[in-house]
Every structure is written in structure tokens, then in C-alpha cells.
């Protein structure tokens, strides 16, 4: 019983409750770096780490946080985890840290993290909260990664910095510029809503 519930907690954020498609939440902090797959991977790993661990921590403390200052406490816990991500990046991958610039810090205001904490972690036990946070992070990761793959492939002819398309390929420079991000995300949302979501509403 408990196991199947945990599995449900894990699967739902990947599919029909995906934070990006259904609620269009939390794209602010990462969309800007989706012109390169590598940067996106690092950012989404940071988001997943922060979502999972802050959900877990807040769930542990849920009976001790006074509800009046709850938002403040939650923000502080999230910020603490983001600082860990920032310091680790700065120490081990200084090049990557420089490229990501302010976006690592902006993970704090990523609505997905606060959303999962408010909607799930405050009313559930630590383990399910950890699973829920981790799964939401993964659901977020694969959507952003697919945007990044499209943008980098069309915009620079490469994936992960490795040239895929030959010299015959003319780079679509619009793809690596800001408008490209808007268009690719709009198209992905459109496709998903027309196919996956439609089937579900029929069933």
C-alpha cells in the first residue's frame, strides 16, 4: 500500500502533473540558459537537488514552523541549499559558474520549489516529500533538456558542445537568441497539450 502510494508520488510529476506543462511554473530561472545543453543540465541538477532537499527539510520541521512566518522560513531553507549549490559550483567548476552567472541564485525564486513545499511538504511525511520533490525536479529536468537540445542543435549545430550537423548546416542564430526560447517552449507545450493531455481527458 505504502509502496504503491510512493510510486504514484514519483510518477505523477513526470507525466500528467508535470510542473512545466500543467502549471507553466518555474521556467524563469532556467529558460535563459537553455541555449546550451551543458548549462541546462547543471542548472536543472541544481533545481532538482534544491527541490528534493528543501521539501525533505521543511517536511521534517513542518510541525514546528509557526504558520505566520512560514514563507520566510521556507525561503531561508531554500536559500541555504542554493548557497550550497553555488559554493560547490564555484569551487569545482569555476568556468561553468561564471557562465551561469546570476541564474544559480535565481533558483531561490523558482516557483516549483516553493510550490512543492507549500502544496506537498507541509502536509506530508519526510520520505514522500523527498520523493515528490525529486520527481518534480526530474519532470522539470527533462522538459528543459528537450528545449535545450532543440535550441543547441538548430542554433549551433551541436549537442553538448560536440558538432553533430556537418558544415552544410546553416545555424539558425534566432534559436540561441532570446526569442528562440519562447518559440520552442510554446511549440513543446502545444504538442504535449494536443497529444498527451487530449488522450487523458478522453479516457
Amino acid at each position: 500500500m505504502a509502496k504503491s502510494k510512493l510510486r504514484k508520488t514519483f510518477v505523477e510529476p513526470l507525466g500528467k502533473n508535470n510542473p512545466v506543462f500543467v502549471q507553466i511554473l518555474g521556467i524563469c530561472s532556467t529558460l535563459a540558459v537553455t541555449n546550451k545543453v551543458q548549462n541546462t543540465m547543471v542548472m536543472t541538477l541544481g533545481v532538482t537537488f534544491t527541490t528534493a532537499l528543501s521539501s525533505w527539510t521543511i517536511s521534517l520541521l513542518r510541525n514546528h514552523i509557526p504558520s505566520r512566518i512560514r514563507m520566510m522560513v521556507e525561503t531561508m531553507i531554500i536559500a541555504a541549499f542554493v548557497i550550497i549549490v553555488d559554493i560547490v559550483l564555484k569551487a569545482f567548476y569555476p568556468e561553468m559558474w561564471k557562465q551561469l552567472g546570476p541564474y544559480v541564485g535565481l533558483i531561490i525564486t523558482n516557483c516549483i520549489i516553493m510550490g512543492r513545499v507549500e502544496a506537498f511538504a507541509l502536509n506530508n511525511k519526510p520520505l514522500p516529500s523527498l520523493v515528490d520533490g525529486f520527481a518534480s525536479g526530474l519532470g522539470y529536468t527533462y522538459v528543459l533538456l528537450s528545449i535545450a537540445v532543440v535550441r543547441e542543435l538548430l542554433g549551433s549545430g551541436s549537442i553538448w558542445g560536440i558538432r553533430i550537423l556537418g558544415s552544410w548546416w546553416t545555424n539558425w542564430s534566432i534559436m540561441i537568441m532570446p526569442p528562440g526560447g519562447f518559440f520552442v517552449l510554446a511549440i513543446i507545450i502545444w504538442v504535449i497539450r494536443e497529444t498527451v493531455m487530449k488522450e487523458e481527458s478522453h479516457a
Partner: protein
Amino acid sequence: MHNFAIFFASIFTGNILLTTYLGMCSFLSVSKELKTSLGLGAAVVFVMATTTPLNWMVYQWLLIPFGLEYLRFIVFIIVIAAFVQLTEMALERYSEGLYQALGIFLPLITVNCAILGASLFMVIREYTLATSFFFGLGSGIGWALAIVAMAGIRQKLKSAKIPPGLEGPGITLVIAGFMAMAFMGFSGMIALT
């Protein structure tokens, strides 16, 4: 001269919403009505123009002397939250009309990534105090301009026939893409560094 360049660049070529996607969440959800987006836009301009120089002072005069730069995320977000809270209380007490107009938008602003983003950009680009004020003001105006324009377009769109899967966020993102292209047209004039 330099400050004015930064000011105009942050409104147009480096528009914080259209080039760095910051503040998307409230942009997508609030841009349905012209009146509410005007209110939210005004609140963002005010908060951004005040918290960016405020955070500059905190960062330069408190965090750097004590070697606490790594705490900037927490400190910035506390400064922003506290400032928003104080403004809300002051408005409620002294200006009934302004509170009615802006009050409900203020709590939304603490979680608006664009506000924190402006402060973080200010640190990375090593602005001076005056420049950070102009940068905050310009970014706020740019954000407000984008959301008000979007609300106007979306009101016209109500009578348009849109494929069902593209309704709502989808079409908003497409329009935002076109707006970003239009704003990029200014980039030959001034660049934001």
C-alpha cells in the same frame, strides 16, 4: 551619460523579461487584464528601483567588509521581503487609495524572480550606486512595458480563433517571442553590459 545608456538599454535591448525570461510566472498569469497588469507593473517599477540600490548598499557596505559575499542570496531576499512588507504597511496606514491600487500586488512581488535578478545582475556587472538605481528603474519600466503591452494584445486576442492546445500560455509565449524580436531591433543602438 553612461547612466542614461544603462537606463535605456535596460528598458529596451536588455529588457529583463524578454531577454532573460525573468518574472515569467506572474507575466503569464497576470497579463490577462490591462488594469491589473498596470497595477502590478507600477508596483514592480517602484520595488525594483528601490531594492536594487538598497541591496547595493547592503552588499558594498556590509557584506564585502565582513567577507560574507556568499550570503548574498539570503540577505538580498530578506531585504526585498522586508522592504515589500514595510511598504505594504506604510501604504495601508497613510494612503488608502494607493493601497487599494497597489496593495494586493505587493505580496506577489517578493517571489518575482525579476526583482532578485536585478540585484544579482547589479553585483555581477559591478555597477556603482547611481548606476544600480538607473538599472533598477529601467528594468522595472521595461518589465512593466512588456506586461502592459502583452495585456493589451491578449484582450484583442479574445475574439481570435486559436488552436485549443495553444490557448493560454502557449499563445502568450509565441507573442512574447515576437515582442522579444521587436525589442531586439533596438540592439544596434545601445548594448547593455
